[in-house]
């Protein structure tokens, strides 16, 4: 303890006299400095005690500590700061490496509970340290193996202090209901343009006109007017379907024009609520958001507000007419599926008023008109009893 090295301050400017006296006392001096009217000597704490004892006439004091003693003194001086720092580091470590909340991302409450129970069984609970990827993968595989019939897929990942568990439950494979006896009927009035028959007997041919509900493919397989077998007819029947579309388009058209005035703002999003930092002074605006920071349900966004004005313009008769045609086409296209299309488009009527144009368009489409009509058991018996 006494061999600790310290700097001692001796308030005397006679350098040689002081050192001679120290030598006579057999004081070890490891370094020394003469500064203005005092002398600094590097010695041991034990020697300093001897200086104090024998050189009473000199004004001496400890100037500084070195090595471990210095570290001890600094530690004592900043003990509160050090403890606070250590606690902060521990808290930071906990925040980075501990799980505070487990969130199972599934809409099914039963599955949620099942997954939570399974996680708990495998040691994945809140207020525990995060596990490394290989361990997580092992647990995920174990849970999936244990719940083969219920769980299809499971993924665990960490987002800050949260552990998100994504789960997909197994959906039972529902076998397509097989019907024993059914017909294919027309779902609308049409002219048959194409037929792909997989099963059943065709009662209509290509270019035949059919009305809604009329049988196209029959499930009754007959020979010499005698029903030999009853099957569920299947096939694709495409037909030409006619539509009459009425569209009115005004000559006055509104559109938006950007003024070039932009305003930037910051918004804070907590859960589903958004709070703007600054008050917006633009009435008509288009908002573009750029995410700056995101942590779970908390986000800070940079908001760009672009001001615009609504303007009106008068379009020509030709423009209005073209617009009406495309609107009519769009209206029909909304009803069509992938293999269906418009094949004929004809204007039946065109009326121009002061402010609008009225167009009546005749449209022919090629679409699937097949509809499965199942013949129930009762109907089947009826048909057998009453031929």
């Amino acid at each position, binding site marked *: 303890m006494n061999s600790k090295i310290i700097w001692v301050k001796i308030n005397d400017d006679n*350098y*040689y006299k002081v*050192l*001679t006296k*120290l*030598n*006579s006392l*057999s*004081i*070890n*001096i*490891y*370094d*020394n400095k003469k500064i203005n009217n005092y002398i600094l000597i590097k010695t041991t704490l034990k020697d300093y005690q001897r200086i104090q004892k024998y050189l009473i006439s000199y004004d001496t004091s400890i100037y500084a500590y070195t090595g471990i003693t210095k570290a001890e003194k600094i530690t004592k001086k900043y003990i509160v700061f050090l403890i606070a720092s250590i606690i902060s580091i521990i808290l930071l470590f906990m925040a980075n490496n501990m799980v505070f909340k487990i969130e199972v991302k599934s809409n099914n409450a039963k599955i949620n509970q099942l997954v939570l129970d399974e996680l708990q069984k495998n040691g994945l609970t809140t207020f525990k340290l995060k596990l490394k990827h290989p361990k997580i993968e092992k647990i995920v595989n174990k849970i999936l193996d244990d719940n083969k019939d219920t769980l299809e897929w499971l993924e665990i990942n960490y987002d800050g202090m949260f552990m998100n568990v994504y789960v997909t439950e197994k959906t039972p494979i529902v076998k397509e209901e097989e019907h024993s006896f059914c017909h294919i009927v027309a779902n609308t009035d049409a002219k048959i343009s194409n037929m792909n028959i997989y099963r059943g007997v065709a009662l209509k041919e290509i270019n035949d006109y059919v009305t809604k509900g009329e049988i196209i493919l029959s499930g009754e397989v007959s020979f010499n007017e005698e029903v030999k077998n009853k099957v569920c007819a299947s096939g694709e029947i495409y037909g030409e379907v006619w539509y009459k579309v009425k569209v009115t388009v005004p000559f006055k058209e509104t559109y938006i024009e950007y003024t070039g005035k932009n305003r930037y703002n910051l918004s804070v999003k907590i859960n589903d609520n958004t709070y703007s930092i600054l008050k917006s002074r633009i009435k008509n605006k288009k908002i573009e958001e750029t995410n700056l920071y995101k942590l779970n349900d908390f986000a800070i966004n940079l908001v760009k507000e672009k001001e615009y004005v609504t303007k009106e313009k008068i379009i020509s008769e030709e423009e209005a007419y073209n617009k009406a045609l495309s609107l009519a086409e769009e209206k029909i296209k909304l009803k069509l599926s992938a293999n269906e299309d418009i094949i004929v488009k004809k204007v039946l009527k065109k009326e121009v008023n002061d402010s609008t144009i009225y167009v009546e368009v005749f449209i022919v489409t090629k679409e699937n008109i097949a509809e499965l009509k199942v013949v129930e058991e009762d109907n089947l018996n009826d048909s057998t009893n009453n031929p």
Partner: protein
Amino acid sequence: MKNLHFNEYFKNFLFDLNNFISIYENNFHVFNYTKLNKLQGDEIIITMANKIVTIKGVDLKVIKMTKQELLIKGEVLKVEFTYE
């Protein structure tokens, strides 16, 4: 706790001499001196086993001083040995 004096043993092993003086550049090293008789900026007088060493110079200063060793720095002009 008993002091083992490792440093002293090590020094004795390295400096296999009773006492010596070494001068290099502006440093004057004295090993195993008996007494420091005089300490001044221009003159230092040291008693060693059988001789008195007088060092004359300019701005002589003590760098290190223990019971055994003395390290002096400064411009050494003259070293005088007086044997008893």
